[in-house]
């Protein structure tokens, strides 16, 4: 373990007494509690952190925050590892292990850097123009190479054992950003009594004050404000929390890093991260500003950093990232860095693009004896894996050419400032349209679209006093808008920063070398240079979106936080358009990348989707049922007895039902309770068949059609009272049907008084079928009069069974005499058990969904979604009798009225009998008329259902066949991989076509 050569003897918010050990690229280092991984690496004089995307050029740490494009690492090792993390935002913990990405064999010697030698051949869009010849080489050779070079970090391999949580919150004022403006806004709102949430992505609140020295009067003020805020009951401070998305209706999403900073020492009861879903009455955005780099030649070497970030390392972490510094700036703010570096013992030279540096800070720097090259620019740099020197020269008055001699200044640190970009991402996400302010040389938030206001640096106020004033006003105004009486708090008069002279915006800088070798990087991660942007424009990519997509600038993990505006500036200069007219590309969520795990929260693994169980589930389980998933439900598929295969079990269940009685748990079928004076009229419109004449106590099978006339759902609906119906739907379609009913009621027919309630979960349904059913029901429900004269097929009666309210339906989905009993869900299991006991002498057999499918198919009953596919009409299914053509209207009527709806060559439902009775067709198999074709074959239909029928003693199938009903008796063919199966087209009803069993 080495000493920390760049750690200052004092200063910073790090804990000097708590050293932490960490490993980077296999080497052990020491940092301090309170360090970020970036500050710890810089303390150890490690600048080389990774390699760039395309050229594999050495890359160091540029910033101290979320905008970091290059200081990225892979955290952790083995299967549990996290890629592309910003060293600037990783808080150091003991035992942290990190490695460089996108390099092989290592970051120091990286063979991928050969790309750099070929870089003149690899400008923007090069791969669109190359790797094409010979075409046969593209996929096996070139693409393989390109793919191997893709990506930055590695995906983990092992499942993540961590837990993520979601939390919903409401507040009156959400303040995003805990810098001077944000703290002030939070204070103003909190004092008014408003419920306040204040979130900041950093571990400590303070924002820009964290980059100020300990003696700065702002530090004491910050502590006072934090103490006061902590005292408000309704104010919640969320450090380590990034507001990453601003959605409609003031809905913001925040991700809180709860234990990331603790590493393996994290208490197991805490989630790793928490996703906050905040609905805020008012939002104050105090998100600060991000410093802009300058696109000078060879500006990418490790050791070249943003000037503001260097101050943060000095004062926040007590780290001086270099000893011989050159500060390269176009504005006053970087002089503070120069002064602080000099104070910390570094040798400093300032290179200022402006011909004169006149502000208070430059004056102070001059007084401190810091050399300044005004009107100069850096035109080249030297160094391999660390900057060694810069070459600077005087520029022409218009800034386009080098004039005069070049001067070499040795440097191991270059601090760059090209001005500041307000962080307008969330404003833009909220659908605000940023506007360019030529005076300040940056984009500012436009008019708010949602209940939101921007304050401080993110609104272009860069002075401390101005930020405090703006924050105070915004916080008070937000609280007022949320219904509170508020006034802007005061602040100590000494909290001010020196006035600054204007910056000089030069987007393109002259270089000492020709364009191709100058390498003026705009996007440091994706290796996009100013020359690439010029090339894109020469090639006709005039739109800023095209420039972005063609060069990939701003498309890296940093989403262009430091590069987008520079790219825009260059495009503006080259095209002669004002920068404000180019438009910014839309900022899209998330602000910084968010883990899949945080988005999912607890809704994964066993909690991915709830399993819906019927009240009788425990009985099925105990009976050894095999289950199948039907939507979210689990239903008994079949009940194998010891030694039985699925086929034998299903055959036994079918036979028992046809011969005696079968019992099916039908609780999963959707049940919608419909009440209101207009319910019959509503059903008349929703179903294709007629409902107004349905008597109380009777049931009817109904087909529901889409507006296109195609079958959408089906089921039996019963009339329980004059204004009271109970609709049943398919198990999978219940939610869809309810939404459909509500959509029509709410948007098209608001005049109808009908109330729909889902009661699927409230009732358990036992479905009994078979010739002896009536005998059993008589025992089970003696209160009901089962005389077929009084209680015919398709009827419903209400009464009690064993003192429990019950509904008894005489309906059937098997073709046998059938009764369905519904009781309140909590009695379902008891009734089922009693039914099984009473039914034993009759040979009562429980059957599952597979036997149910066989039984219904033998009878030619369809299943919506199996026989139908969204293009099937009632007529196609032979259900024309269910179309109430005399009704004034119903959904789908207009479509059905078209002449073509009745064309004879539509696909129609038929039965199929394979020539060989043991041949079982595959569901989904295609039918052809001519077996002697070769592909492409003309297909005239397909098999929708196919089973072995115990009742028929052979296989059979249902199919949809073109002009099928005219083909009865014809032979068609089903091509199988190994043979051709001949089938005979039949009526689709195989059992009891006369319906004698049903009505018995």
């Amino acid at each position, binding site marked *: 373990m080495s000493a920390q050569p760049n750690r200052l003897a004092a200063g910073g918010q790090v804990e000097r007494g708590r050293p932490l050990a960490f490993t980077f690229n296999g080497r052990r280092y020491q940092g301090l509690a309170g360090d970020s991984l970036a500050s710890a690496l810089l303390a150890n004089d490690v600048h080389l952190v990774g390699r760039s995307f395309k050229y594999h050029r050495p890359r160091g740490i540029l910033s101290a925050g979320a905008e970091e494009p290059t200081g990225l690492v892979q955290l952790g090792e083995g299967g549990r590892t996290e890629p592309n993390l910003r060293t600037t935002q990783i808080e150091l913990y003991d035992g942290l292990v990190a490695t460089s990405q996108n390099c092989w064999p290592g970051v120091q010697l990286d063979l991928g850097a050969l790309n750099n030698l070929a870089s003149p051949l690899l400008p923007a869009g090069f791969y669109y123009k190359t790797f094409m010849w010979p075409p046969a080489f593209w996929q096996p050779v070139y693409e393989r190479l390109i793919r191997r070079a893709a990506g930055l970090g590695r995906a983990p391999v092992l499942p993540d054992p961590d837990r993520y949580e979601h939390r919903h919150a409401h507040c009156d004022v959400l303040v995003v950003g805990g810098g001077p403006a944000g703290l002030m806004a939070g204070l103003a709102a909190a004092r008014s009594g408003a419920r306040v949430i204040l979130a900041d992505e950093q571990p400590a609140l303070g924002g820009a004050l964290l980059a100020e020295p300990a003696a700065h009067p702002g530090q004491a003020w910050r502590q006072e404000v934090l103490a006061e805020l902590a005292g408000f009951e309704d104010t919640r401070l969320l450090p380590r929390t990034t507001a990453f998305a601003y959605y409609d209706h003031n809905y913001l999403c925040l991700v809180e890093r709860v234990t990331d900073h603790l590493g393996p020492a994290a208490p197991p009861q805490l989630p790793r991260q928490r996703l906050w879903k905040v609905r805020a009455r008012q939002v104050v955005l105090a998100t600060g500003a991000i410093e802009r780099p300058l696109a000078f030649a060879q500006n990418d070497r490790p050791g070249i950093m943003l000037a503001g970030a260097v101050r943060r390392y000095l004062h926040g972490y007590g780290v001086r990232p270099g000893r011989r510094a050159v500060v390269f700036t176009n504005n006053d703010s970087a002089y503070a860095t120069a002064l602080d570096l000099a104070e910390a013992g570094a040798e400093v030279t300032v290179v200022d693009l402006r011909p004169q540096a006149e502000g208070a800070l430059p004056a102070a720097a001059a007084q401190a004896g810091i050399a300044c090259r005004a009107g100069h620019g850096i035109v080249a740099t030297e160094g391999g894996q660390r900057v060694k020197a810069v070459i600077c020269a005087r520029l022409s008055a218009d800034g386009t050419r080098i004039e005069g001699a070049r001067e070499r200044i040795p440097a191991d640190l270059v601090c760059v400032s090209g001005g500041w970009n307000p962080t307008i991402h969330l404003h833009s996400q909220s659908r605000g349209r940023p506007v360019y302010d030529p005076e300040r040389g940056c984009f500012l938030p436009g008019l708010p679209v949602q209940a939101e206001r921007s304050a401080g640096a993110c609104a272009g106020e860069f002075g401390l006093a101005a930020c405090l004033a703006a924050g105070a006003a915004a916080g008070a105004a937000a609280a007022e808008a949320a219904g509170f009486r508020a006034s802007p708090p005061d602040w100590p008069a000494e909290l001010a920063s020196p006035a600054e002279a204007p910056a000089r915006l030069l987007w393109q800088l002259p270089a000492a070398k020709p364009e191709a070798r100058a390498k003026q990087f705009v996007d440091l991660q994706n290796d996009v240079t100013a020359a690439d942007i010029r090339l894109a424009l020469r090639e006709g990519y005039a739109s800023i979106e095209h420039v972005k997509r063609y060069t990939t600038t701003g498309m890296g993990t940093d989403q262009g936080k430091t590069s987008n505006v520079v790219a825009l500036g260059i495009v503006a200069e080259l095209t002669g358009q004002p920068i404000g007219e180019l438009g910014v590309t839309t900022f899209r969520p998330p602000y910084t990348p968010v883990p899949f795990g945080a*988005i999912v929260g607890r809704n*994964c693994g066993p909690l*991915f989707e709830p399993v819906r169980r019927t009240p009788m589930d425990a009985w099925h389980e105990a009976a050894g049922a095999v289950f199948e998933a039907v939507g979210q439900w689990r239903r008994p598929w079949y009940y194998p007895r010891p030694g039985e295969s699925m086929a034998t079990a299903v055959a036994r269940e079918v036979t028992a039902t046809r011969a005696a009685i079968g019992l099916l748990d039908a609780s999963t079928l959707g049940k919608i309770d419909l009440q209101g004076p207009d319910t019959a009229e509503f059903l008349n419109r929703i179903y294709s068949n007629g409902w107004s004449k349905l008597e109380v106590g009777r049931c009817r099978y109904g087909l529901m059609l889409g507006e296109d006339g195609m079958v959408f759902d089906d089921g039996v609906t019963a009339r329980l009272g004059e204004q009271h119906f109970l609709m049943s739907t398919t198990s999978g379609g219940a939610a869809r049907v309810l939404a459909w009913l509500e959509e029509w009621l709410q948007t098209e027919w608001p005049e109808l008084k009908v109330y729909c309630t889902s009661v699927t979960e409230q009732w358990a349904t036992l479905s009994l079928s078979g010739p002896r059913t009536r005998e059993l029901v008589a025992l089970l429900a003696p209160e009901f009069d089962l005389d077929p004269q009084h209680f015919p097929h398709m009827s419903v009666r209400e009464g009690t069974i064993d003192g429990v309210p019950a509904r008894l339906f005489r309906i059937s989905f098997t073709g046998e005499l059938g009764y369905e009993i519904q009781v309140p869900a909590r009695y379902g299991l008891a009734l089922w058990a009693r039914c099984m006991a009473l039914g034993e002498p009759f040979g009562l057999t429980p059957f599952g969904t597979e036997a149910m499918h066989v039984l219904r198919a033998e009878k030619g009953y369809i299943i919506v979604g199996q026989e139908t596919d*969204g293009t099937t009409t009632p007529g196609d299914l032979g259900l024309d009798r269910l179309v109430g053509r005399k009704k004034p209207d119903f959904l789908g009527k207009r479509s059905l009225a078209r002449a073509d709806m009745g064309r004879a060559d539509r696909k129609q439902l038929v039965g199929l009998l394979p020539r060989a009775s043991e041949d079982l067709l595959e569901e*989904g198999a295609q039918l052809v008329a001519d077996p002697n074709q070769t592909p492409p074959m003309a297909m005239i239909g397909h098999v929708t259902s196919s089973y072995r029928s115990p009742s028929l003693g052979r296989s059979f199938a249902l199919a949809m066949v073109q002009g099928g009903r005219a083909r009865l008796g014809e032979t068609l063919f089903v091509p199988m991989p190994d043979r051709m199966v001949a089938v005979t087209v039949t009526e689709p009803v195989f059992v009891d076509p006369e319906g004698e069993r049903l009505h018995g």
Partner: protein
Amino acid sequence: MPFALLKHALRRPPAAEAYWPQPGELGQSYDVVIIGAGGHGLAAAYYLAREHGIKRVAVLDKGYLGGGNTGRNTTIIRANYLTPEGVAFYKESVELFRTLSAELDLNLMYSERGHLTLAHTDAAVRTARWRAEVNQHLGVDSSLVDPDEIARICPQLNLSRAVRYPILGALYHPPGAIARHDAVAWGYARAAARLGVELHPQTEVTGLVIERGRVSAVETSRGRIQAGKVLQAVAGSSSLVAGMAGLKLPIRTVPLQACVSQPLKPFLDTIIVSGSLHVYVSQSARGELVMGGSTDPYPLYATRSSLEFKEGLMGPMLELFPFLAEVKVLRQWAGMADMTPDFSPVMGLTPIENYFIDAGWGTWGFKATPVSGKRMAECVATGRQPALLEPFALERFERVELVGEKGAASVGH
């Protein structure tokens, strides 16, 4: 060998010549005006000029070239549809895509990765088998595979039986591919421009002048132009533009969102789709996981993003790939999907004699870019509906001859 390869690879030194000329003045009249400079409109322009010699063509767009759904889709190309009509159509598209880089002299990064449509239920297995059968009968490489085979094709998938919806099988389509979507638009734009087609981005169509059942002129934000024939190819705005022509389309427009992860070293070679879980994913040439799911639940003309979408997508992602919890979403966006009742596009003639339509592209537009361009060009040039497009004619809704592709839409929207 490596050197020779490199020489071949870089055979054509990157030229700095413009892909297309700077947009000039809008002309007075054109033989064909194409509304919409996305992939479809640009492809149609290219084939009109190249195959039919019609070069007085202007392609108009309210935004920039390829800025609509062409630049917002998830770039999957496949032919494993459900209906014979759909399979035949997309099969031709895949065949055109395969040689398109050479034809357009631009590397579209067309990459055959294999395409797995996972089935988690019996019903989904049935649909997969149905599709496999139809595909095979039409000569498309597609088959039903079992979990063992899935494990061989994509070992990263979680094939455990102990999950909420275990994978029971899949439809495997080896020719399934991805490509660089922007490049497809750029390639067609460049090739069309070289043949004399005029490209006019930032030129919004504001009205159509229709006289006696014919379009005579197109009103734009830059003035009126006379048009011999007009083709609309404006996925996401189809109903609005058709409305200017007085046409009512059976289309509802809903947002479709997508997102990408941070770039990762490639580990997922196959394109994975799960209709039951509502998710599809592939890994791009940049290493990003490109992910999509269901369309938004209600009609809307807005390309905003929502958290609900991400939640609905990431849950299934972690079911399929439980090791990705620490991987991060980088960017989320939305496009507009013109959904038709049968999940198939609308192409060809309209009741207006010289007005042609290329619409209803729902979530399946990018993969049809070459074939739709080629066949729509044929349609516009000849004034007749090409045989391949016959099933997709607008009047099929009159004839009720729907081409039901819901079962093969990438996600059962």
